[in-house]
């Protein structure tokens, strides 16, 4: 093996992929789920009144698009949560992002 490829092998051994801690994974998935539920709730409340007015139909679909992003993690999250109930740790900077997404939803709903 050449010196260069030896060194690259050494680099590969040093920079091995690192598994995320299970606690973080649970926390992230829980946050995404909560976000999805909140976004879906916003949409459902708004839809009940707005869908009666045809002028709002386009906005309803746009809002559904926002919720679609939020719902994306649901499929994997639901199954995990059934057997992984742990205490929620502080969400630190996550809270800002959550608020940001909810704000997106509200803007798309025209509130």
């Amino acid at each position, binding site marked *: 093996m050449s010196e260069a490829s030896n*060194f690259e092998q050494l680099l590969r051994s040093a*920079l091995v*992929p*690192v*598994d995320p801690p299970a606690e*973080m994974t649970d926390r992230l998935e829980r946050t995404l789920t909560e976000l999805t539920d909140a976004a879906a709730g916003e949409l459902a409340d708004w839809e009940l009144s707005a869908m009666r007015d045809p002028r709002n139909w386009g906005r309803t679909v746009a809002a559904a698009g926002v*919720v679609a*992003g939020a719902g*994306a993690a649901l499929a994997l999250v639901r199954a995990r949560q059934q057997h992984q109930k742990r205490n929620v740790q502080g969400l630190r900077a996550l809270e800002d*992002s959550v608020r940001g997404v909810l704000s997106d939803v509200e803007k798309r709903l025209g509130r």
Partner: protein
Amino acid sequence: MANPPAAAAAKATLDADFTDLYRTHLRDIYSYSYYRVGNHHDAEDLTEQTFLQAYRHFERAQRESRGRPLRPWLIRIAHNLAANYYRDRSRRPQTSLDDAGVLSEPHTTADLVEGRQELQEVLEGVANLPEDRREALIMRFALDMDNREIARAMGRTEGATKVLIHRAIKQLEESLKDDERGE
């Protein structure tokens, strides 16, 4: 006029696609974040922030990617967040990494001590490289990305990326040799 049932079907597809993206790349994003910032605590924050950002902009990113892999886009989000992290807190990456699990593979005692030392020196050398070189090496060796993917993540041409990686390896090799001579 848009049809709500059609929108619901599109939503279901988008949901499934994001789930795939998350499952496939969670480890990549965590690894990238970890080697960028050098500790698990901040790597967790960066990873969480990255996926929340990704989830906000996923629909558009998917549309604009025209079927190309989205890993470079995810890495780019993590890169921008990491840059803000350093700017806001005036920090540099830690040269002494938390235990990454890298150094715990079974060896004889002598091998283990020598191997740990060598790998630790490599990691410290990587952490001391200029940011673009450090990132390129992380993507190549920790995430096993090819030149094309790295180029997309870094907003460079493939040729420039190849040169960047070559120079990064050379610089690291030289600095480790200098350290050896200095001991």
